[in-house]
C-alpha cells in the first residue's frame, strides 16, 4: 500500500543527500575530533563545515552555534542555562501553547521558587503583546516563546517580542523547531538571544539539534564534562548527526522558496477542499500568520483517533489533538488554550506537509477524507441527519 506522509511536524523523511554525506563518518572517518592525531583531527573540519552551513541558514556567525542532542535538550539548556547565569532574577514568562519541552521545564521551575507566567492566546492562537509587555519587569530573567506552533502552525511576531524583551534586560529564547527550514530567518538582524532547532524536522537525522547562542548572551552550560563546543556543551560530538544536520540546513536554504510556494500551494489546496467538502469543519489557528506547511482542521461531532485510523487504512499519515491520541484523557493543551470547544477539539486533525509531498497525494487525500468523515458521522449520536 502507498504511504502518504502528512505528518511532517512530527518528523520528516531524511533526505538521501543527507544520508550520503553522513555515510563515511561511521566506518571510515570515525575518529574523535578532540584527538591529537591527524586521523581524529581531520573530523574537526567536517564539524566546522556543518557549523558554517547551519549558520548560513540562520544568518548568524558559526561561533554562535552549539550542537546538542535535539530540540528538547536545546530548550532545557536555554531555560536552565539562562536562569543559572542570572541568579538575581526570579521570573520566567512563557505561553500556554508551548511544546512540552519548554512547558514542562518551565513548570518545574516553580518548585525552585521561580514565578512562571504563562501567557494565554486568543481564539486564533495569537498572543497579546501588551499583556507580555505588562508582565515584563526588572525581575524577569527569561522569556521563552515559540516561533511557530507545532499543532496549528501559528507563528508569533518573534522580532517584535525579542525587542520588547531585550529592552528590559531579560534573555529571550525561542523554540524554533517548527520554523527553521520553513520560513526565512536572519538572526544577525534580530535580537533573539537563544534559539532551538532540531535536525529531524528539516529532513535531517534524529538525535541532533542546535542551540543558537547570540554573542554576549550569558548562559551556563547544562551538560558538564569535556571542553567540546567551546565548553558550552560537553560530550563527544555526534559527528554523523552533526554532518547530516549541516547538509540538511544547506538543502533547506536551497528549498526555502519551494517550501513557501509549492508546499504552501499543496497545503492550501488540501485545506480548502476539506473545509469545502466536509460540512461542520473549521480551521484551527489564524489563516495568515501561519507556517506554509501546516493545517489543523476540526471535524465536529466525531473523534480524532477514529479519523486517524480510517486514514491509516488508506495509508494516509496525520495526527490529532484528540484526547485519545494525546496519551491523556483531555484534548490538546494548545486547542484548549485557544478556547476551541470540546466538540471540535476532540475531532481535530493536523496535516503537515513537506517538499516530498506531491499534488497526486493531496488529490488522493481529498478524495478519501469526505467519505471517512461522512461514515463516522453516520455513527455519531450527535448527528441526526
Amino acid at each position, binding site marked *: 500500500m502507498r504511504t502518504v506522509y502528512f505528518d511532517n511536524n512530527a518528523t520528516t523523511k531524511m533526505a538521501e543527500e543527507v544520508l550520503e554525506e553522513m555515510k563515511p563518518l561511521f566506518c571510515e572517518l570515525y575518529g574523535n575530533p578532540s584527538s591529537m592525531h591527524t586521523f581524529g583531527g581531520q573530523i574537526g573540519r567536517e564539524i566546522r563545515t556543518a557549523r558554517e552551513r547551519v549558520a548560513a541558514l540562520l544568518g548568524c556567525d558559526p561561533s554562535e552555534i552549539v550542537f546538542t542532542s535535539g530540540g528538547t535538550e536545546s530548550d532545557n539548556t536555554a531555560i536552565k542555562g539562562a536562569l543559572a547565569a542570572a541568579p538575581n532574577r526570579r521570573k520566567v514568562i512563557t505561553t500556554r501553547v508551548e511544546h512540552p519541552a519548554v512547558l514542562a521545564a518551565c513548570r518545574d521551575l516553580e518548585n525552585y521558587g521561580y514565578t512562571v507566567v504563562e501567557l494565554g492566546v486568543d481564539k486564533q492562537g495569537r498572543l497579546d503583546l501588551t499583556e507580555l509587555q505588562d508582565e515584563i519587569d526588572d525581575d524577569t530573567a527569561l522569556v521563552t516563546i515559540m516561533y511557530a506552533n507545532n499543532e496549528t502552525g501559528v507563528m508569533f511576531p518573534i522580532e517584535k517580542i525579542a525587542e520588547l524583551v531585550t529592552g528590559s534586560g531579560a534573555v529571550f529564547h525561542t523554540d524554533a523547531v517548527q520554523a527553521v527550514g520553513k520560513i526565512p530567518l536572519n538572526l544577525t538582524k534580530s535580537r533573539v538571544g537563544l534559539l532551538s532547532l532540531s535536525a529531524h524536522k528539516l529532513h535531517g537525522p534524529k538525535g541532533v539539534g542546535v542551540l543558537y547562542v547570540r554573542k554576549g548572551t550569558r548562559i551556563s552550560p547544562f551538560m558538564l564534562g569535556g571542553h567540546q563546543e567551546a565548553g558550552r556543551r560537553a560530550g563527544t560530538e555526534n559527528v554523523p548527526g552533526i554532518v547530516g544536520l549541516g547538509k540538511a540546513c544547506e538543502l533547506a536554504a536551497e528549498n526555502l522558496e519551494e517550501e513557501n510556494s509549492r508546499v504552501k500551494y499543496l497545503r492550501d489546496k488540501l485545506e480548502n477542499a476539506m473545509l469545502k467538502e466536509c460540512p461542520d469543519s473549521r480551521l484551527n489557528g489564524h489563516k495568515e500568520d501561519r507556517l506554509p506547511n501546516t493545517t489543523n482542521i476540526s471535524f465536529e461531532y466525531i473523534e480524532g483517533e477514529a479519523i486517524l485510523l480510517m486514514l491509516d487504512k488508506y495509508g494516509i499519515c496525520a495526527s490529532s489533538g484528540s484526547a485519545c491520541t494525546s496519551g491523556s*484523557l483531555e484534548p490538546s493543551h494548545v486547542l484548549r488554550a485557544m478556547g476551541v470547544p470540546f466538540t471540535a477539539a476532540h475531532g481535530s486533525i493536523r496535516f503537515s506537509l513537506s517538499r516530498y509531498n506531491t499534488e497526486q497525494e493531496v488529490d488522493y487525500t481529498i478524495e478519501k477524507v469526505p467519505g471517512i468523515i461522512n461514515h463516522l458521522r453516520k455513527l455519531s449520536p450527535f448527528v441526526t441527519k
Partner: protein
Amino acid sequence: MWEYSDKLKDHFFNPRNVGEVENPDGVGEVGSLACGDALKLTFRLDANGRIQDAKFKTFGCASAIATSSVLTEMIKGKTLEQAAKVTNRDIADYLGGLPEQKMHCSVMGREALEAAIENYRSGGKKKHELEGNIVCTCFGVTDKEIERVIRENDLTTVEDVTNYSKAGGGCGGCQGEIEKIIEKVQHDKIKQARTPAPRRAGKLTNIQKIQLIQQTINEQIRPALRADGGNIELIDVDGDKVIVAFRGMCAQCRLAEFTMRDVVEAKLREFVSEQLYVEEAKESAEQPHNHRG
C-alpha cells in the same frame, strides 16, 4: 499507536447494527461530547421478552465504536435478565481484550445497556441519572460508579480506576478521594504499590512547617489548578494563617473562593496541620508577581 485486536479493528471498520431502532422499548444514553465519548443504545423486545433488535450510535475513538458494535451483537436474543448480567469484562473479553487505557470504553457499553434496561422498566419515562455523589468533576464520575468498577474489575490503584472510568484523568484533583474509595472497597487487598502520600509530621518547627506547606502546595495543590490554566503562589505564613495568591485563570474564576476554602485548606490541613487556615492576598492578586516588594 494503540495495540488493537483484529476483532476490534473488524468491528471498528465494519460496525454492526448502526443506527436507532424504530419505536424502541428501551433507550440508553451515556457520555457527552465534552468527555470525548458518548453512546446511544436502543433495543426492541420480541413477544417472549427477548431482545429482538439492538442498535447503537457512538461518538468516540475506535475502541468506543467497536465496543458498542459488539455490545449490540452480544445482547441480541437475550432476555433482559440475561442482558443485565453482562459486565464490562465480558464486553472486553468478547473483543479479544482492550488496551488498559481503553477499558473505560467497555464500562461505557455496560452503562448504556443498564441505562436502556432501566429506561424500559420505568415504562420509557426514566432517563439515565447519575447515582451517588460526583467525585471526578472533569468527567462527571460518581463514587457509586467508581466503587463498582473497582469491585467488578478488582482494581487496586488510582491509575486503574482512571483507565476504567476516566475518573481522576483530568485535573487529577480527585485522586486522593479515589484512593480512599479504593481503600474502602478493597481493604486489605491493597498492596504496597500505592505511592504513599507524605505523612503528616508531629511537632514542627516554624521552618519545617513553612517548608511542608510549600511542598504540599507544589505537589498536592498546584497540579490540580494547573489543569485549568490556573496557579497558586505562597505569599506568607503567619502563625497558622497561610496567605496565598491565585494566578492565571484561578484569579478570575468565579469559583475561586470555593476552590480556595475547600481544596487548599483541606489539603494543607491533611498534610501539614489541622490548625491551618487560608487567606487570599487580595491586593497581590490584582498586582501579580510583585512578590519581592
